[in-house]
Protein backbone atom coordinates (compact mmCIF):
# COMPACT_ATOMS: atom_id res chain seq x y z
CA UNK A 1 0.00 0.00 0.00
CA UNK A 2 1.21 3.42 -0.83
CA UNK A 3 0.42 6.16 1.66
CA UNK A 4 3.06 8.43 0.26
CA UNK A 5 0.80 9.72 -2.53
CA UNK A 6 -1.82 10.83 -0.08
CA UNK A 7 0.61 13.12 1.69
CA UNK A 8 2.86 14.35 -1.07
CA UNK A 9 -0.02 15.31 -3.37
CA UNK A 10 2.18 15.32 -6.42
CA UNK A 11 0.31 16.21 -9.61
CA UNK A 12 -0.81 12.92 -11.12
CA UNK A 13 -0.25 12.13 -14.78
CA UNK A 14 -3.99 11.73 -15.24
CA UNK A 15 -4.69 15.22 -13.89
CA UNK A 16 -2.05 16.76 -16.09
CA UNK A 17 -3.49 14.89 -19.08
CA UNK A 18 -7.04 16.04 -18.34
CA UNK A 19 -5.96 19.66 -17.97
CA UNK A 20 -3.93 19.58 -21.17
CA UNK A 21 -6.78 17.95 -23.02
CA UNK A 22 -9.27 20.60 -21.90
CA UNK A 23 -7.00 23.36 -23.11
CA UNK A 24 -6.30 21.67 -26.45
CA UNK A 25 -10.00 21.03 -27.09
CA UNK A 26 -10.94 24.57 -26.20
CA UNK A 27 -8.52 25.78 -28.85
CA UNK A 28 -9.66 23.16 -31.38
CA UNK A 29 -13.33 23.87 -30.84
CA UNK A 30 -12.92 27.62 -30.94
CA UNK A 31 -10.43 27.30 -33.76
CA UNK A 32 -8.40 29.96 -32.02
CA UNK A 33 -4.80 30.24 -31.01
CA UNK A 34 -3.52 30.07 -27.49
CA UNK A 35 -2.97 33.85 -27.79
CA UNK A 36 -6.58 34.80 -28.36
CA UNK A 37 -7.76 32.62 -25.46
CA UNK A 38 -5.22 34.36 -23.25
CA UNK A 39 -6.40 37.72 -24.51
CA UNK A 40 -10.03 36.86 -23.86
CA UNK A 41 -9.12 35.72 -20.39
CA UNK A 42 -7.21 38.93 -19.65
CA UNK A 43 -10.04 41.08 -20.96
CA UNK A 44 -12.72 39.22 -19.04
CA UNK A 45 -10.59 39.42 -15.94
CA UNK A 46 -10.18 43.16 -16.37
CA UNK A 47 -13.93 43.67 -16.55
CA UNK A 48 -14.64 41.44 -13.58
CA UNK A 49 -11.85 43.02 -11.58
CA UNK A 50 -14.01 46.09 -11.31
CA UNK A 51 -16.44 44.12 -9.17
CA UNK A 52 -14.47 41.28 -7.59
CA UNK A 53 -11.16 40.88 -5.87
CA UNK A 54 -9.34 37.84 -7.16
CA UNK A 55 -5.97 36.63 -8.27
CA UNK A 56 -5.36 36.53 -11.99
CA UNK A 57 -3.69 33.12 -12.13
CA UNK A 58 -6.54 31.26 -10.42
CA UNK A 59 -8.82 31.85 -13.43
CA UNK A 60 -9.68 28.78 -15.53
CA UNK A 61 -11.51 28.72 -18.85
CA UNK A 62 -12.73 25.86 -21.03
CA UNK A 63 -15.38 24.92 -23.57
CA UNK A 64 -17.88 22.16 -22.94
CA UNK A 65 -19.85 20.43 -25.65
CA UNK A 66 -23.61 20.62 -25.34
CA UNK A 67 -25.32 18.84 -28.22
CA UNK A 68 -24.71 20.93 -31.29
CA UNK A 69 -23.31 23.94 -29.49
CA UNK A 70 -20.76 24.78 -26.85
CA UNK A 71 -20.80 26.30 -23.42
CA UNK A 72 -17.97 28.55 -22.38
CA UNK A 73 -17.07 27.74 -18.82
CA UNK A 74 -15.05 30.17 -16.82
CA UNK A 75 -14.08 29.84 -13.18
CA UNK A 76 -13.20 33.07 -11.46
CA UNK A 77 -12.63 32.19 -7.83
CA UNK A 78 -12.78 35.48 -5.92
CA UNK A 79 -11.90 36.61 -2.43
CA UNK A 80 -14.61 39.18 -2.00
CA UNK A 81 -16.87 41.63 -3.73
CA UNK A 82 -15.52 45.10 -4.08
CA UNK A 83 -17.46 47.73 -2.26
CA UNK A 84 -18.99 50.13 -4.71
CA UNK A 85 -17.51 53.57 -4.19
Amino acid at each position, binding site marked *: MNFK*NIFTRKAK*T*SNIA*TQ*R*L*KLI*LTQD*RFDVSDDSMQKLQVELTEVLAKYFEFTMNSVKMSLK*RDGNSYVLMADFPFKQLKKSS
Partner: protein
Amino acid sequence: MGKVIVITSGKGGVGKTTSTANLGTALAMISKKVVIIDADVGLRNLDVVMGLESRVVYTSMDVIEKRCELEKALVKDRRVEDLFLLAASQRNRKDDIKPEQMLDICERLKEIYDFVLVDSPAGIEQGFHNAAAGAEEAIIITTPDVSAIRDADRIIGLLQNQDIEPINLILNRLSPTLVKKGNMISKNDVLDILNIDLLGIVPEDPGVIASTNRGVPLVHNDGSPGADAYMRIARRMIGQRVPIPEMRDDNFFSNILKWFSRNK
Protein backbone atom coordinates in the same frame (compact mmCIF):
# COMPACT_ATOMS: atom_id res chain seq x y z
CA MET B 1 -35.79 -1.78 -41.38
CA GLY B 2 -32.33 -2.07 -39.87
CA LYS B 3 -29.83 0.43 -38.57
CA VAL B 4 -26.64 1.59 -40.21
CA ILE B 5 -23.95 2.42 -37.67
CA VAL B 6 -20.52 3.79 -38.52
CA ILE B 7 -17.67 2.77 -36.19
CA THR B 8 -15.05 5.49 -36.27
CA SER B 9 -12.36 7.27 -34.25
CA GLY B 10 -10.26 9.85 -36.04
CA LYS B 11 -7.03 8.43 -34.70
CA GLY B 12 -5.69 5.21 -36.17
CA GLY B 13 -5.10 1.96 -34.36
CA VAL B 14 -7.49 2.50 -31.47
CA GLY B 15 -9.69 -0.56 -32.14
CA LYS B 16 -12.29 0.23 -34.84
CA THR B 17 -11.75 -2.99 -36.77
CA THR B 18 -11.54 -5.10 -33.62
CA SER B 19 -14.79 -3.56 -32.38
CA THR B 20 -16.59 -3.99 -35.72
CA ALA B 21 -15.60 -7.68 -35.89
CA ASN B 22 -16.59 -8.42 -32.31
CA LEU B 23 -19.82 -6.42 -32.23
CA GLY B 24 -20.90 -7.86 -35.59
CA THR B 25 -20.27 -11.39 -34.35
CA ALA B 26 -21.86 -10.70 -30.95
CA LEU B 27 -25.02 -9.25 -32.52
CA ALA B 28 -25.33 -12.28 -34.80
CA MET B 29 -24.88 -14.55 -31.77
CA ILE B 30 -27.89 -12.92 -30.17
CA SER B 31 -29.97 -13.67 -33.28
CA LYS B 32 -29.68 -10.45 -35.25
CA LYS B 33 -29.11 -10.35 -38.98
CA VAL B 34 -25.84 -8.49 -39.49
CA VAL B 35 -23.60 -7.20 -42.28
CA ILE B 36 -20.22 -5.70 -41.49
CA ILE B 37 -18.72 -3.45 -44.17
CA ASP B 38 -15.03 -2.75 -44.50
CA ALA B 39 -14.81 0.89 -45.61
CA ASP B 40 -11.03 1.02 -45.35
CA VAL B 41 -10.45 0.86 -49.12
CA GLY B 42 -6.81 0.14 -49.97
CA LEU B 43 -5.92 -0.97 -46.44
CA ARG B 44 -8.53 -3.59 -45.80
CA ASN B 45 -8.28 -5.54 -42.59
CA LEU B 46 -11.70 -6.59 -41.44
CA ASP B 47 -11.60 -9.78 -43.55
CA VAL B 48 -8.34 -10.82 -41.85
CA VAL B 49 -9.53 -9.99 -38.33
CA MET B 50 -12.66 -12.03 -39.07
CA GLY B 51 -10.60 -14.89 -40.54
CA LEU B 52 -12.57 -14.69 -43.79
CA GLU B 53 -9.80 -13.44 -46.11
CA SER B 54 -9.52 -16.66 -48.11
CA ARG B 55 -13.20 -16.54 -49.03
CA VAL B 56 -13.40 -12.97 -50.30
CA VAL B 57 -14.16 -13.02 -54.04
CA TYR B 58 -15.88 -9.69 -54.65
CA THR B 59 -15.64 -6.30 -52.96
CA SER B 60 -17.81 -3.22 -52.64
CA MET B 61 -15.95 -1.83 -55.67
CA ASP B 62 -17.26 -4.73 -57.79
CA VAL B 63 -20.78 -3.93 -56.61
CA ILE B 64 -20.39 -0.22 -57.39
CA GLU B 65 -18.93 -0.92 -60.82
CA LYS B 66 -21.69 -3.46 -61.45
CA ARG B 67 -19.46 -6.47 -61.89
CA CYS B 68 -21.49 -8.34 -59.32
CA GLU B 69 -24.80 -8.25 -57.44
CA LEU B 70 -24.70 -6.93 -53.87
CA GLU B 71 -26.00 -10.21 -52.43
CA LYS B 72 -23.31 -12.17 -54.21
CA ALA B 73 -20.51 -9.97 -52.86
CA LEU B 74 -21.41 -10.76 -49.25
CA VAL B 75 -19.17 -13.37 -47.61
CA LYS B 76 -21.10 -15.56 -45.20
CA ASP B 77 -19.50 -16.31 -41.84
CA ARG B 78 -20.12 -20.02 -41.32
CA ARG B 79 -19.58 -19.92 -37.57
CA VAL B 80 -22.78 -18.00 -36.78
CA GLU B 81 -26.19 -17.60 -38.40
CA ASP B 82 -26.84 -14.45 -40.41
CA LEU B 83 -23.46 -12.76 -40.32
CA PHE B 84 -21.98 -11.40 -43.56
CA LEU B 85 -18.95 -9.36 -44.60
CA LEU B 86 -18.71 -6.90 -47.46
CA ALA B 87 -14.99 -6.55 -48.11
CA ALA B 88 -13.14 -3.48 -49.39
CA SER B 89 -11.08 -3.42 -52.53
CA GLN B 90 -7.38 -3.57 -51.85
CA ARG B 91 -6.37 -2.25 -55.28
CA ASN B 92 -8.41 0.95 -55.18
CA ARG B 93 -8.04 4.22 -53.38
CA LYS B 94 -10.37 5.79 -50.89
CA ASP B 95 -11.57 8.48 -53.31
CA ASP B 96 -12.48 5.91 -55.96
CA ILE B 97 -15.75 5.56 -54.06
CA LYS B 98 -18.28 8.36 -53.70
CA PRO B 99 -20.48 8.95 -50.64
CA GLU B 100 -23.67 8.43 -52.71
CA GLN B 101 -22.45 4.98 -53.72
CA MET B 102 -21.85 3.95 -50.09
CA LEU B 103 -25.21 5.42 -49.15
CA ASP B 104 -26.88 3.32 -51.83
CA ILE B 105 -25.24 0.10 -50.60
CA CYS B 106 -26.21 0.84 -46.99
CA GLU B 107 -29.80 1.69 -47.92
CA ARG B 108 -30.21 -1.60 -49.74
CA LEU B 109 -28.64 -3.65 -46.96
CA LYS B 110 -30.73 -2.17 -44.18
CA GLU B 111 -33.89 -3.31 -45.95
CA ILE B 112 -32.84 -6.88 -45.15
CA TYR B 113 -30.47 -6.77 -42.20
CA ASP B 114 -31.03 -5.60 -38.61
CA PHE B 115 -27.56 -4.11 -38.27
CA VAL B 116 -25.16 -2.76 -40.86
CA LEU B 117 -21.86 -1.91 -39.15
CA VAL B 118 -19.38 0.16 -41.15
CA ASP B 119 -15.70 -0.06 -40.18
CA SER B 120 -14.32 3.40 -40.93
CA PRO B 121 -10.73 4.15 -41.86
CA ALA B 122 -8.73 6.50 -39.63
CA GLY B 123 -8.61 10.20 -40.48
CA ILE B 124 -11.15 12.84 -41.40
CA GLU B 125 -10.79 12.70 -45.17
CA GLN B 126 -12.79 11.12 -47.98
CA GLY B 127 -12.55 7.59 -46.53
CA PHE B 128 -14.20 8.70 -43.31
CA HIS B 129 -16.88 10.65 -45.18
CA ASN B 130 -17.67 7.61 -47.32
CA ALA B 131 -17.93 5.40 -44.25
CA ALA B 132 -20.30 7.86 -42.57
CA ALA B 133 -22.37 8.55 -45.71
CA GLY B 134 -24.95 5.81 -45.14
CA ALA B 135 -24.97 5.93 -41.34
CA GLU B 136 -27.70 7.28 -39.12
CA GLU B 137 -25.84 6.44 -35.91
CA ALA B 138 -22.21 6.33 -34.86
CA ILE B 139 -20.01 4.58 -32.36
CA ILE B 140 -16.82 6.41 -31.49
CA ILE B 141 -13.89 4.31 -30.36
CA THR B 142 -11.26 5.99 -28.24
CA THR B 143 -8.43 4.99 -25.98
CA PRO B 144 -7.87 6.94 -22.77
CA ASP B 145 -5.06 9.18 -23.98
CA VAL B 146 -4.83 12.83 -24.96
CA SER B 147 -4.27 12.42 -28.70
CA ALA B 148 -7.01 9.81 -29.27
CA ILE B 149 -9.56 11.85 -27.31
CA ARG B 150 -8.63 15.00 -29.17
CA ASP B 151 -9.27 13.26 -32.51
CA ALA B 152 -12.51 11.76 -31.18
CA ASP B 153 -13.70 15.25 -30.34
CA ARG B 154 -13.01 16.42 -33.86
CA ILE B 155 -14.92 13.46 -35.34
CA ILE B 156 -17.89 14.03 -33.01
CA GLY B 157 -18.12 17.60 -34.27
CA LEU B 158 -18.13 16.42 -37.90
CA LEU B 159 -20.76 13.74 -37.25
CA GLN B 160 -23.03 16.18 -35.42
CA ASN B 161 -22.87 18.50 -38.41
CA GLN B 162 -24.22 15.63 -40.52
CA ASP B 163 -27.06 15.08 -38.03
CA ILE B 164 -25.83 11.63 -37.08
CA GLU B 165 -27.51 10.83 -33.79
CA PRO B 166 -27.04 9.16 -31.37
CA ILE B 167 -23.27 9.15 -31.17
CA ASN B 168 -22.11 6.74 -28.49
CA LEU B 169 -18.70 6.05 -27.05
CA ILE B 170 -16.68 2.90 -26.52
CA LEU B 171 -13.67 3.42 -24.32
CA ASN B 172 -11.12 0.83 -25.42
CA ARG B 173 -7.97 -0.53 -23.79
CA LEU B 174 -8.72 0.82 -20.35
CA SER B 175 -6.37 -0.59 -17.78
CA PRO B 176 -7.79 -0.40 -14.26
CA THR B 177 -4.35 -0.70 -12.73
CA LEU B 178 -3.06 2.30 -14.66
CA VAL B 179 -6.17 4.34 -13.81
CA LYS B 180 -5.65 3.55 -10.14
CA LYS B 181 -2.04 4.61 -10.30
CA GLY B 182 -3.14 7.89 -11.86
CA ASN B 183 -1.38 7.28 -15.15
CA MET B 184 -4.47 7.15 -17.33
CA ILE B 185 -7.34 9.52 -17.92
CA SER B 186 -10.34 8.07 -16.12
CA LYS B 187 -13.67 7.10 -17.64
CA ASN B 188 -15.46 9.99 -15.96
CA ASP B 189 -12.99 12.56 -17.24
CA VAL B 190 -13.33 11.24 -20.80
CA LEU B 191 -17.13 11.37 -20.62
CA ASP B 192 -17.09 14.81 -19.07
CA ILE B 193 -14.83 16.15 -21.80
CA LEU B 194 -16.51 14.56 -24.83
CA ASN B 195 -20.03 14.83 -23.42
CA ILE B 196 -21.56 11.88 -25.28
CA ASP B 197 -23.12 8.70 -23.88
CA LEU B 198 -21.02 5.74 -22.90
CA LEU B 199 -21.93 2.51 -24.69
CA GLY B 200 -19.27 0.45 -22.98
CA ILE B 201 -15.75 -0.06 -21.75
CA VAL B 202 -13.41 -2.65 -23.24
CA PRO B 203 -10.44 -3.46 -21.05
CA GLU B 204 -6.90 -3.97 -22.26
CA ASP B 205 -6.91 -7.68 -23.09
CA PRO B 206 -3.97 -9.66 -24.49
CA GLY B 207 -6.56 -12.03 -25.96
CA VAL B 208 -7.34 -9.40 -28.63
CA ILE B 209 -4.03 -9.84 -30.43
CA ALA B 210 -4.21 -13.63 -30.19
CA SER B 211 -7.71 -13.59 -31.66
CA THR B 212 -6.67 -11.28 -34.51
CA ASN B 213 -3.76 -13.55 -35.30
CA ARG B 214 -6.00 -16.60 -35.37
CA GLY B 215 -8.80 -14.90 -37.27
CA VAL B 216 -11.36 -15.76 -34.63
CA PRO B 217 -13.13 -12.79 -33.01
CA LEU B 218 -12.75 -12.73 -29.26
CA VAL B 219 -16.47 -13.18 -28.55
CA HIS B 220 -16.25 -16.78 -29.83
CA ASN B 221 -14.30 -17.78 -26.73
CA ASP B 222 -16.29 -16.50 -23.83
CA GLY B 223 -14.65 -15.92 -20.50
CA SER B 224 -12.10 -13.36 -21.58
CA PRO B 225 -12.68 -9.82 -20.24
CA GLY B 226 -12.72 -8.38 -23.76
CA ALA B 227 -15.32 -10.90 -24.99
CA ASP B 228 -17.49 -10.21 -21.97
CA ALA B 229 -17.29 -6.46 -22.63
CA TYR B 230 -18.28 -6.82 -26.30
CA MET B 231 -21.19 -9.16 -25.49
CA ARG B 232 -22.51 -6.61 -23.03
CA ILE B 233 -22.20 -3.80 -25.55
CA ALA B 234 -24.08 -5.86 -28.16
CA ARG B 235 -26.91 -6.45 -25.70
CA ARG B 236 -27.06 -2.74 -24.98
CA MET B 237 -27.25 -2.10 -28.72
CA ILE B 238 -30.42 -4.17 -28.97
CA GLY B 239 -31.97 -2.20 -26.15
CA GLN B 240 -31.39 -4.52 -23.20
CA ARG B 241 -30.59 -2.83 -19.93
CA VAL B 242 -27.18 -4.25 -19.19
CA PRO B 243 -25.16 -2.35 -16.59
CA ILE B 244 -21.66 -1.14 -17.41
CA PRO B 245 -19.52 -2.74 -14.72
CA GLU B 246 -17.29 -0.41 -12.77
CA MET B 247 -13.78 -1.56 -13.43
CA ARG B 248 -12.20 -3.26 -10.53
CA ASP B 249 -8.47 -2.97 -10.14
CA ASP B 250 -7.05 -6.39 -11.10
CA ASN B 251 -4.50 -6.02 -8.40
CA PHE B 252 -6.87 -5.01 -5.66
CA PHE B 253 -7.04 -8.38 -3.96
CA SER B 254 -3.43 -9.27 -4.55
CA ASN B 255 -2.46 -5.88 -3.10
CA ILE B 256 -4.44 -6.60 0.04
CA LEU B 257 -2.86 -10.03 0.32
CA LYS B 258 0.60 -8.55 -0.08
CA TRP B 259 -0.13 -5.93 2.52
CA PHE B 260 -1.28 -8.52 5.03
CA SER B 261 1.66 -10.81 4.43
CA ARG B 262 4.05 -7.91 4.85
CA ASN B 263 2.49 -6.89 8.14
CA LYS B 264 2.36 -10.30 9.71
